[in-house]
Protein backbone atom coordinates (compact mmCIF):
# COMPACT_ATOMS: atom_id res chain seq x y z
CA UNK A 1 0.00 0.00 0.00
CA UNK A 2 1.01 3.57 -0.46
CA UNK A 3 0.91 4.15 3.31
CA UNK A 4 3.44 1.39 4.01
CA UNK A 5 5.65 2.47 1.13
CA UNK A 6 5.77 5.97 2.50
CA UNK A 7 6.38 4.68 6.04
CA UNK A 8 9.24 2.57 4.74
CA UNK A 9 10.74 5.61 3.01
CA UNK A 10 10.87 7.36 6.38
CA UNK A 11 12.47 4.31 7.99
CA UNK A 12 15.02 4.18 5.14
CA UNK A 13 15.83 7.88 5.66
CA UNK A 14 16.13 7.66 9.45
CA UNK A 15 18.25 4.51 9.41
CA UNK A 16 20.49 6.02 6.74
CA UNK A 17 21.03 9.13 8.85
CA UNK A 18 21.53 7.01 11.97
CA UNK A 19 24.03 4.78 10.18
CA UNK A 20 25.99 7.87 9.18
CA UNK A 21 25.88 9.83 12.39
CA UNK A 22 25.51 6.94 14.90
CA UNK A 23 24.55 9.57 17.42
CA UNK A 24 21.64 7.68 18.92
CA UNK A 25 22.98 4.15 18.83
CA UNK A 26 26.31 4.87 20.53
CA UNK A 27 24.73 6.97 23.23
CA UNK A 28 22.10 4.31 23.90
CA UNK A 29 24.52 1.38 24.08
CA UNK A 30 26.82 3.29 26.40
CA UNK A 31 23.92 4.40 28.59
CA UNK A 32 22.40 0.91 28.73
CA UNK A 33 25.69 -0.73 29.66
CA UNK A 34 26.19 1.93 32.33
CA UNK A 35 22.73 1.33 33.82
CA UNK A 36 23.24 -2.43 33.94
CA UNK A 37 26.68 -2.05 35.39
CA UNK A 38 25.43 0.22 38.13
CA UNK A 39 22.61 -2.20 38.94
CA UNK A 40 24.92 -5.18 39.22
CA UNK A 41 27.40 -3.12 41.19
CA UNK A 42 24.72 -1.79 43.53
CA UNK A 43 23.11 -5.15 44.15
CA UNK A 44 26.45 -6.64 44.93
CA UNK A 45 27.92 -10.07 44.48
CA UNK A 46 24.82 -11.99 45.65
CA UNK A 47 24.20 -13.80 42.36
CA UNK A 48 21.06 -15.46 43.70
CA UNK A 49 19.44 -12.04 44.25
CA UNK A 50 20.78 -10.71 40.95
CA UNK A 51 19.25 -13.59 39.04
CA UNK A 52 15.89 -13.11 40.70
CA UNK A 53 15.67 -9.41 39.77
CA UNK A 54 17.51 -9.65 36.44
CA UNK A 55 14.25 -9.35 34.48
CA UNK A 56 13.38 -6.12 36.26
CA UNK A 57 16.85 -4.62 35.90
CA UNK A 58 16.98 -5.51 32.23
CA UNK A 59 13.67 -3.87 31.38
CA UNK A 60 14.35 -0.77 33.48
CA UNK A 61 17.59 -0.48 31.51
CA UNK A 62 15.69 -0.89 28.23
CA UNK A 63 13.01 1.64 29.22
CA UNK A 64 15.47 4.37 30.17
CA UNK A 65 17.65 3.68 27.14
CA UNK A 66 14.53 3.79 25.01
CA UNK A 67 13.70 7.24 26.32
CA UNK A 68 16.96 8.47 24.75
CA UNK A 69 15.92 7.21 21.34
CA UNK A 70 12.38 8.56 21.73
CA UNK A 71 13.66 12.05 22.46
CA UNK A 72 15.51 11.92 19.16
CA UNK A 73 12.69 10.46 17.10
CA UNK A 74 12.06 13.75 15.28
CA UNK A 75 15.61 15.05 15.60
CA UNK A 76 16.31 14.85 11.88
CA UNK A 77 13.10 16.76 11.20
CA UNK A 78 13.78 19.43 13.80
CA UNK A 79 17.10 20.30 12.17
CA UNK A 80 15.56 20.40 8.72
CA UNK A 81 12.57 22.67 9.08
CA UNK A 82 10.29 20.88 11.50
CA UNK A 83 7.77 18.05 11.36
CA UNK A 84 5.72 20.01 8.82
CA UNK A 85 8.41 18.89 6.39
CA UNK A 86 6.80 15.45 6.61
CA UNK A 87 3.24 16.73 6.77
CA UNK A 88 3.58 18.63 3.50
CA UNK A 89 3.61 15.38 1.52
CA UNK A 90 0.42 13.83 0.22
CA UNK A 91 -1.02 10.70 1.75
CA UNK A 92 -2.23 9.77 5.22
CA UNK A 93 -0.11 11.35 8.00
CA UNK A 94 -0.28 7.98 9.77
CA UNK A 95 2.59 6.96 7.50
CA UNK A 96 4.77 9.24 9.63
CA UNK A 97 3.75 7.40 12.79
CA UNK A 98 4.40 3.98 11.24
CA UNK A 99 7.74 5.11 9.81
CA UNK A 100 8.98 6.53 13.08
CA UNK A 101 7.58 3.53 14.99
CA UNK A 102 9.44 0.96 12.85
CA UNK A 103 12.58 3.13 13.12
CA UNK A 104 12.39 3.23 16.91
CA UNK A 105 11.69 -0.50 17.17
CA UNK A 106 14.67 -1.34 14.97
CA UNK A 107 17.07 0.93 16.87
CA UNK A 108 15.88 -0.28 20.27
CA UNK A 109 16.09 -3.95 19.23
CA UNK A 110 19.60 -3.31 17.94
CA UNK A 111 20.59 -1.92 21.32
CA UNK A 112 18.95 -4.88 23.04
CA UNK A 113 21.13 -7.19 20.99
CA UNK A 114 24.00 -5.73 23.00
CA UNK A 115 22.02 -5.32 26.23
CA UNK A 116 20.87 -8.91 26.69
CA UNK A 117 24.32 -10.53 26.41
CA UNK A 118 25.71 -7.84 28.73
CA UNK A 119 22.96 -8.68 31.24
CA UNK A 120 23.74 -12.37 30.89
CA UNK A 121 27.33 -11.69 31.87
CA UNK A 122 26.65 -9.15 34.61
CA UNK A 123 23.75 -10.99 36.23
CA UNK A 124 25.05 -14.51 35.57
CA UNK A 125 21.84 -15.61 33.89
CA UNK A 126 21.55 -18.27 31.18
CA UNK A 127 19.96 -16.75 28.09
CA UNK A 128 20.89 -19.22 25.40
CA UNK A 129 18.60 -22.12 26.40
CA UNK A 130 15.59 -19.79 26.34
CA UNK A 131 16.81 -17.55 23.50
CA UNK A 132 13.65 -17.95 21.43
CA UNK A 133 11.14 -17.17 24.18
CA UNK A 134 13.23 -14.26 25.42
CA UNK A 135 13.44 -12.85 21.90
CA UNK A 136 9.65 -13.05 21.69
CA UNK A 137 9.16 -11.21 24.98
CA UNK A 138 11.82 -8.64 24.03
CA UNK A 139 10.17 -7.96 20.68
CA UNK A 140 6.67 -7.71 22.15
CA UNK A 141 7.88 -5.41 24.92
CA UNK A 142 9.92 -3.24 22.56
CA UNK A 143 6.94 -2.90 20.22
CA UNK A 144 4.70 -1.82 23.11
CA UNK A 145 7.29 0.65 24.37
CA UNK A 146 7.84 2.10 20.90
CA UNK A 147 4.12 2.46 20.12
CA UNK A 148 3.33 4.53 23.19
CA UNK A 149 6.75 6.22 23.04
CA UNK A 150 6.59 7.27 19.40
CA UNK A 151 3.08 8.62 19.89
CA UNK A 152 3.91 10.71 22.94
CA UNK A 153 7.19 11.83 21.32
CA UNK A 154 5.12 13.32 18.50
CA UNK A 155 2.70 14.92 20.97
CA UNK A 156 5.45 16.55 23.02
CA UNK A 157 7.94 17.41 20.25
CA UNK A 158 7.09 21.10 20.13
CA UNK A 159 6.45 21.48 23.85
CA UNK A 160 8.74 23.67 25.89
CA UNK A 161 9.41 21.18 28.68
CA UNK A 162 9.66 18.15 26.43
CA UNK A 163 12.32 16.35 28.48
CA UNK A 164 9.95 16.41 31.48
CA UNK A 165 6.68 15.84 29.66
CA UNK A 166 7.70 12.77 27.65
CA UNK A 167 8.63 10.57 30.66
CA UNK A 168 5.75 11.99 32.73
CA UNK A 169 3.21 10.99 30.09
CA UNK A 170 5.00 7.82 29.07
CA UNK A 171 5.72 5.92 32.27
CA UNK A 172 2.17 5.67 33.68
CA UNK A 173 1.10 4.31 30.31
CA UNK A 174 3.99 1.85 30.26
CA UNK A 175 3.21 0.17 33.59
CA UNK A 176 1.21 -2.73 32.07
CA UNK A 177 3.89 -3.36 29.44
CA UNK A 178 6.68 -3.26 32.04
CA UNK A 179 4.77 -5.60 34.35
CA UNK A 180 4.21 -8.04 31.53
CA UNK A 181 7.77 -7.89 30.19
CA UNK A 182 9.49 -8.03 33.57
CA UNK A 183 7.44 -10.92 34.88
CA UNK A 184 7.66 -12.88 31.63
CA UNK A 185 11.43 -12.38 31.41
CA UNK A 186 12.00 -13.28 35.06
CA UNK A 187 9.87 -16.42 34.78
CA UNK A 188 11.69 -17.51 31.63
CA UNK A 189 15.11 -16.92 33.14
CA UNK A 190 14.50 -18.20 36.64
CA UNK A 191 12.14 -21.00 35.71
CA UNK A 192 8.49 -21.19 35.00
CA UNK A 193 7.02 -24.37 36.52
CA UNK A 194 3.37 -23.38 36.12
CA UNK A 195 3.87 -21.63 32.78
CA UNK A 196 2.63 -18.37 34.26
CA UNK A 197 4.61 -16.51 31.61
CA UNK A 198 1.76 -17.28 29.20
CA UNK A 199 -0.47 -14.79 31.06
CA UNK A 200 2.14 -12.06 30.87
CA UNK A 201 2.78 -12.63 27.18
CA UNK A 202 -0.96 -12.38 26.56
CA UNK A 203 -0.95 -9.10 28.51
CA UNK A 204 1.89 -7.81 26.31
CA UNK A 205 0.02 -8.71 23.14
CA UNK A 206 -3.22 -7.05 24.32
CA UNK A 207 -1.29 -3.95 25.37
CA UNK A 208 0.44 -3.71 21.98
CA UNK A 209 -2.78 -4.18 20.01
CA UNK A 210 -4.86 -1.72 22.06
CA UNK A 211 -2.30 1.08 22.03
CA UNK A 212 -1.45 0.51 18.38
CA UNK A 213 -5.10 1.02 17.44
CA UNK A 214 -5.58 4.06 19.68
CA UNK A 215 -2.32 5.72 18.63
CA UNK A 216 -2.96 5.14 14.95
CA UNK A 217 -6.49 6.51 15.29
CA UNK A 218 -5.54 9.69 17.16
CA UNK A 219 -2.11 10.36 15.60
CA UNK A 220 -3.21 12.79 12.85
CA UNK A 221 -4.83 14.99 15.50
CA UNK A 222 -1.61 15.00 17.52
CA UNK A 223 0.28 16.31 14.52
CA UNK A 224 -2.04 19.17 13.63
CA UNK A 225 -0.52 22.62 13.78
CA UNK B 1 -14.50 2.94 69.44
CA UNK B 2 -10.96 1.75 68.65
CA UNK B 3 -8.80 3.33 65.95
CA UNK B 4 -10.71 6.56 66.73
CA UNK B 5 -7.66 8.57 65.74
CA UNK B 6 -7.60 7.20 62.21
CA UNK B 7 -11.33 7.55 61.72
CA UNK B 8 -11.42 11.16 62.88
CA UNK B 9 -8.33 11.93 60.84
CA UNK B 10 -9.95 10.38 57.75
CA UNK B 11 -13.21 12.29 58.01
CA UNK B 12 -11.60 15.59 58.93
CA UNK B 13 -9.12 15.23 56.07
CA UNK B 14 -12.03 14.66 53.69
CA UNK B 15 -13.93 17.69 55.00
CA UNK B 16 -10.82 19.86 55.02
CA UNK B 17 -9.83 18.92 51.47
CA UNK B 18 -13.28 19.49 49.95
CA UNK B 19 -13.86 22.75 51.82
CA UNK B 20 -10.40 24.00 50.93
CA UNK B 21 -10.86 23.23 47.24
CA UNK B 22 -14.30 24.87 47.15
CA UNK B 23 -12.92 27.95 48.94
CA UNK B 24 -9.90 28.10 46.61
CA UNK B 25 -12.02 27.84 43.48
CA UNK B 26 -14.42 30.53 44.66
CA UNK B 27 -11.53 32.83 45.62
CA UNK B 28 -9.92 32.38 42.19
CA UNK B 29 -13.35 33.03 40.66
CA UNK B 30 -13.66 36.40 42.42
CA UNK B 31 -10.08 37.35 41.46
CA UNK B 32 -10.72 36.53 37.81
CA UNK B 33 -14.02 38.43 37.79
CA UNK B 34 -12.41 41.49 39.35
CA UNK B 35 -9.46 41.35 36.93
CA UNK B 36 -11.85 41.11 34.01
CA UNK B 37 -14.00 44.03 35.10
CA UNK B 38 -10.87 46.15 35.62
CA UNK B 39 -9.74 45.26 32.14
CA UNK B 40 -13.07 46.09 30.55
CA UNK B 41 -13.28 49.27 32.64
CA UNK B 42 -9.88 50.48 31.46
CA UNK B 43 -10.51 49.67 27.84
CA UNK B 44 -14.00 50.96 27.12
CA UNK B 45 -14.83 52.87 30.26
CA UNK B 46 -18.01 50.98 31.01
CA UNK B 47 -18.05 48.09 33.49
CA UNK B 48 -20.20 45.72 31.56
CA UNK B 49 -21.20 43.91 34.66
CA UNK B 50 -18.64 41.10 35.01
CA UNK B 51 -19.43 39.41 38.28
CA UNK B 52 -18.26 36.13 39.65
CA UNK B 53 -21.56 34.63 38.68
CA UNK B 54 -23.41 36.01 35.70
CA UNK B 55 -22.04 36.55 32.20
CA UNK B 56 -22.53 40.09 30.91
CA UNK B 57 -26.05 40.77 29.62
Amino acid at each position, binding site marked *: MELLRRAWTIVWKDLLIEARTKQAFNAMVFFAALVLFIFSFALGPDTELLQQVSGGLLWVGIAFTGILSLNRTYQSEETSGGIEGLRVYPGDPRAIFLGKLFGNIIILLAVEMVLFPAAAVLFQIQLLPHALELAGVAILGTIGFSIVGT*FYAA*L*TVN*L*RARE*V*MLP*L*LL*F*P*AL*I*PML*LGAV*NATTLIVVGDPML*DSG*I*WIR*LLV*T*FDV*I*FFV*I*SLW*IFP*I*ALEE | *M*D*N*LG*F*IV*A*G*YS*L*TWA*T*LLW*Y*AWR*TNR*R*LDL*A*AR*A*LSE*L*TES*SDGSTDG*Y*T*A*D*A*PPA
Partner: protein
Amino acid sequence: MTSKSGLANVIGIAALALFLVGSFVGLFVVPADGMQGDIQRLMYVHVPAAWLAFMSFFVVFLMSVLYLIQRDLRWDRVAQSSAEIGVVFTVLTLALGSMWGKPTWGVWWTWDPRLTTTAIMLAIYVGYLAIRSFADDPDKRARWAAIVGIIGFANVPIVYLSVIWWRTLHQPPSSPRSVSPEILWTLMFNLAAFTVIYVYLMMRRIRLAKLEGELEQRMAYHG
Protein backbone atom coordinates in the same frame (compact mmCIF):
# COMPACT_ATOMS: atom_id res chain seq x y z
CA MET C 1 -28.31 37.27 43.29
CA THR C 2 -28.48 36.31 39.69
CA SER C 3 -30.00 32.97 38.70
CA LYS C 4 -26.70 31.26 37.87
CA SER C 5 -24.98 31.82 41.17
CA GLY C 6 -28.22 31.17 43.03
CA LEU C 7 -28.42 27.66 41.61
CA ALA C 8 -24.75 27.02 42.41
CA ASN C 9 -25.19 28.15 45.98
CA VAL C 10 -28.31 26.02 46.41
CA ILE C 11 -26.43 22.97 45.18
CA GLY C 12 -23.52 23.92 47.40
CA ILE C 13 -25.72 24.04 50.47
CA ALA C 14 -27.43 20.79 49.49
CA ALA C 15 -24.01 19.15 49.12
CA LEU C 16 -22.96 20.45 52.51
CA ALA C 17 -26.15 19.17 54.18
CA LEU C 18 -26.02 15.78 52.50
CA PHE C 19 -22.42 15.21 53.46
CA LEU C 20 -23.04 16.37 57.03
CA VAL C 21 -25.80 13.79 57.38
CA GLY C 22 -23.72 11.15 55.58
CA SER C 23 -20.75 11.71 57.86
CA PHE C 24 -22.89 11.67 60.97
CA VAL C 25 -24.59 8.42 59.96
CA GLY C 26 -21.31 6.89 58.87
CA LEU C 27 -19.59 7.75 62.13
CA PHE C 28 -22.26 7.20 64.79
CA VAL C 29 -25.49 5.70 63.49
CA VAL C 30 -24.68 2.67 61.38
CA PRO C 31 -23.37 -0.38 63.31
CA ALA C 32 -19.65 -1.09 62.94
CA ASP C 33 -18.55 -3.89 60.67
CA GLY C 34 -18.27 -7.21 62.51
CA MET C 35 -14.85 -8.19 61.24
CA GLN C 36 -12.92 -4.94 60.82
CA GLY C 37 -14.51 -2.97 63.61
CA ASP C 38 -14.92 0.80 63.53
CA ILE C 39 -12.05 1.49 61.13
CA GLN C 40 -14.37 0.24 58.40
CA ARG C 41 -16.30 3.53 58.82
CA LEU C 42 -13.61 5.10 56.65
CA MET C 43 -15.24 3.21 53.81
CA TYR C 44 -18.02 5.84 53.67
CA VAL C 45 -15.51 8.49 52.55
CA HIS C 46 -12.83 6.35 50.91
CA VAL C 47 -15.07 4.47 48.47
CA PRO C 48 -17.13 7.49 47.33
CA ALA C 49 -13.90 9.47 46.82
CA ALA C 50 -12.51 6.64 44.68
CA TRP C 51 -15.75 6.43 42.70
CA LEU C 52 -15.86 10.20 42.12
CA ALA C 53 -12.21 10.20 41.05
CA PHE C 54 -12.97 7.55 38.46
CA MET C 55 -16.14 9.32 37.34
CA SER C 56 -14.35 12.66 37.00
CA PHE C 57 -11.81 11.11 34.67
CA PHE C 58 -14.57 9.46 32.70
CA VAL C 59 -16.07 12.92 32.23
CA VAL C 60 -12.65 14.16 31.09
CA PHE C 61 -12.59 11.32 28.58
CA LEU C 62 -16.05 12.15 27.22
CA MET C 63 -15.36 15.86 27.01
CA SER C 64 -12.03 15.20 25.30
CA VAL C 65 -13.72 13.12 22.62
CA LEU C 66 -16.42 15.80 22.21
CA TYR C 67 -13.79 18.53 21.92
CA LEU C 68 -11.85 16.65 19.23
CA ILE C 69 -15.07 16.21 17.26
CA GLN C 70 -16.58 19.68 17.65
CA ARG C 71 -13.49 21.75 18.54
CA ASP C 72 -15.63 23.84 20.89
CA LEU C 73 -13.60 25.17 23.83
CA ARG C 74 -16.63 24.75 26.09
CA TRP C 75 -15.97 21.00 26.21
CA ASP C 76 -12.34 21.66 26.97
CA ARG C 77 -13.28 23.82 29.93
CA VAL C 78 -15.45 21.02 31.35
CA ALA C 79 -12.64 18.50 30.78
CA GLN C 80 -10.10 20.74 32.50
CA SER C 81 -12.37 21.30 35.48
CA SER C 82 -13.24 17.62 35.85
CA ALA C 83 -9.56 16.65 35.63
CA GLU C 84 -8.57 19.04 38.40
CA ILE C 85 -11.42 17.89 40.64
CA GLY C 86 -10.58 14.28 39.77
CA VAL C 87 -7.00 14.75 40.92
CA VAL C 88 -8.24 16.19 44.24
CA PHE C 89 -10.50 13.16 44.75
CA THR C 90 -7.66 10.79 43.77
CA VAL C 91 -5.27 12.27 46.31
CA LEU C 92 -8.03 12.02 48.90
CA THR C 93 -8.68 8.39 47.97
CA LEU C 94 -5.01 7.47 48.35
CA ALA C 95 -4.68 9.26 51.69
CA LEU C 96 -7.80 7.59 53.04
CA GLY C 97 -6.63 4.25 51.63
CA SER C 98 -3.40 4.37 53.57
CA MET C 99 -5.21 5.58 56.70
CA TRP C 100 -7.43 2.54 56.42
CA GLY C 101 -4.48 0.25 55.59
CA LYS C 102 -2.28 1.22 58.54
CA PRO C 103 -4.48 -0.23 61.33
CA THR C 104 -5.82 -3.06 59.13
CA TRP C 105 -2.62 -4.37 57.52
CA GLY C 106 -0.02 -2.53 59.57
CA VAL C 107 1.44 -0.71 56.55
CA TRP C 108 0.81 2.67 55.08
CA TRP C 109 0.95 1.32 51.50
CA THR C 110 0.04 -2.04 49.97
CA TRP C 111 0.19 -3.04 46.32
CA ASP C 112 -3.53 -3.67 46.37
CA PRO C 113 -4.76 -3.61 42.77
CA ARG C 114 -7.27 -0.81 43.38
CA LEU C 115 -4.84 1.38 45.32
CA THR C 116 -2.04 0.80 42.79
CA THR C 117 -4.32 1.66 39.89
CA THR C 118 -5.46 4.81 41.70
CA ALA C 119 -1.85 5.86 42.21
CA ILE C 120 -1.06 5.33 38.51
CA MET C 121 -4.25 7.15 37.57
CA LEU C 122 -3.02 10.08 39.65
CA ALA C 123 0.26 10.10 37.68
CA ILE C 124 -1.65 10.05 34.39
CA TYR C 125 -3.80 13.06 35.26
CA VAL C 126 -0.94 14.99 36.81
CA GLY C 127 0.50 14.55 33.32
CA TYR C 128 -2.80 15.86 31.91
CA LEU C 129 -2.66 19.02 34.04
CA ALA C 130 1.07 19.40 33.30
CA ILE C 131 0.65 19.34 29.52
CA ARG C 132 -2.02 22.01 29.86
CA SER C 133 0.37 24.26 31.71
CA PHE C 134 3.06 23.94 29.05
CA ALA C 135 0.91 24.96 26.09
CA ASP C 136 0.21 28.65 25.51
CA ASP C 137 -2.14 28.58 22.58
CA PRO C 138 -5.68 27.72 23.85
CA ASP C 139 -6.57 25.55 20.87
CA LYS C 140 -3.33 23.56 20.97
CA ARG C 141 -3.63 23.22 24.74
CA ALA C 142 -7.17 21.88 24.38
CA ARG C 143 -6.17 19.48 21.61
CA TRP C 144 -3.13 18.02 23.38
CA ALA C 145 -5.03 17.77 26.65
CA ALA C 146 -7.88 15.98 24.90
CA ILE C 147 -5.45 13.43 23.48
CA VAL C 148 -3.93 12.78 26.91
CA GLY C 149 -7.44 12.66 28.37
CA ILE C 150 -8.46 9.95 25.92
CA ILE C 151 -5.31 7.81 26.02
CA GLY C 152 -4.95 8.30 29.77
CA PHE C 153 -8.44 7.01 30.42
CA ALA C 154 -8.01 4.04 28.07
CA ASN C 155 -4.96 3.17 30.14
CA VAL C 156 -6.80 2.84 33.46
CA PRO C 157 -8.60 -0.48 32.84
CA ILE C 158 -5.43 -1.98 31.33
CA VAL C 159 -3.42 -0.95 34.37
CA TYR C 160 -6.10 -2.31 36.69
CA LEU C 161 -6.19 -5.64 34.87
CA SER C 162 -2.41 -6.04 34.76
CA VAL C 163 -2.06 -5.14 38.45
CA ILE C 164 -4.74 -7.66 39.40
CA TRP C 165 -2.88 -10.38 37.49
CA TRP C 166 0.30 -9.28 39.15
CA ARG C 167 -1.15 -9.43 42.64
CA THR C 168 -3.42 -12.46 42.38
CA LEU C 169 -0.56 -14.59 41.08
CA HIS C 170 0.99 -14.10 44.47
CA GLN C 171 -1.85 -13.53 46.94
CA PRO C 172 -5.44 -14.80 46.70
CA PRO C 173 -7.94 -11.98 46.03
CA SER C 174 -9.95 -10.87 49.11
CA SER C 175 -13.32 -12.63 48.78
CA PRO C 176 -16.20 -10.14 48.75
CA ARG C 177 -18.28 -10.79 51.94
CA SER C 178 -21.98 -10.05 52.05
CA VAL C 179 -22.45 -6.46 53.27
CA SER C 180 -25.29 -5.67 55.65
CA PRO C 181 -28.05 -3.42 54.20
CA GLU C 182 -27.39 -0.56 56.65
CA ILE C 183 -23.77 -0.37 55.54
CA LEU C 184 -24.82 -0.48 51.91
CA TRP C 185 -27.39 2.30 52.36
CA THR C 186 -24.92 4.52 54.21
CA LEU C 187 -22.40 4.00 51.45
CA MET C 188 -24.96 4.83 48.76
CA PHE C 189 -26.04 7.95 50.64
CA ASN C 190 -22.49 9.20 50.94
CA LEU C 191 -21.90 8.40 47.29
CA ALA C 192 -24.88 10.62 46.42
CA ALA C 193 -23.53 13.35 48.71
CA PHE C 194 -20.13 13.17 47.00
CA THR C 195 -21.77 13.37 43.60
CA VAL C 196 -23.62 16.57 44.55
CA ILE C 197 -20.32 17.96 45.87
CA TYR C 198 -18.78 17.10 42.50
CA VAL C 199 -21.57 18.90 40.64
CA TYR C 200 -21.15 22.00 42.78
CA LEU C 201 -17.39 22.08 42.37
CA MET C 202 -17.75 21.55 38.63
CA MET C 203 -20.17 24.47 38.23
CA ARG C 204 -17.76 26.82 40.00
CA ARG C 205 -14.62 25.47 38.32
CA ILE C 206 -16.12 25.62 34.81
CA ARG C 207 -17.17 29.22 35.45
CA LEU C 208 -13.63 29.98 36.57
CA ALA C 209 -12.23 28.38 33.41
CA LYS C 210 -14.57 30.53 31.33
CA LEU C 211 -13.45 33.76 33.00
CA GLU C 212 -9.79 32.75 32.78
CA GLY C 213 -10.28 32.04 29.10
CA GLU C 214 -11.69 35.50 28.49
CA LEU C 215 -8.93 37.02 30.61
CA GLU C 216 -6.34 35.21 28.50
CA GLN C 217 -7.96 36.45 25.33
CA ARG C 218 -8.15 40.07 26.53
CA MET C 219 -4.57 39.93 27.78
CA ALA C 220 -3.46 38.70 24.38
CA TYR C 221 -5.54 41.48 22.81
CA HIS C 222 -4.12 44.17 25.12
CA GLY C 223 -0.67 42.60 25.53
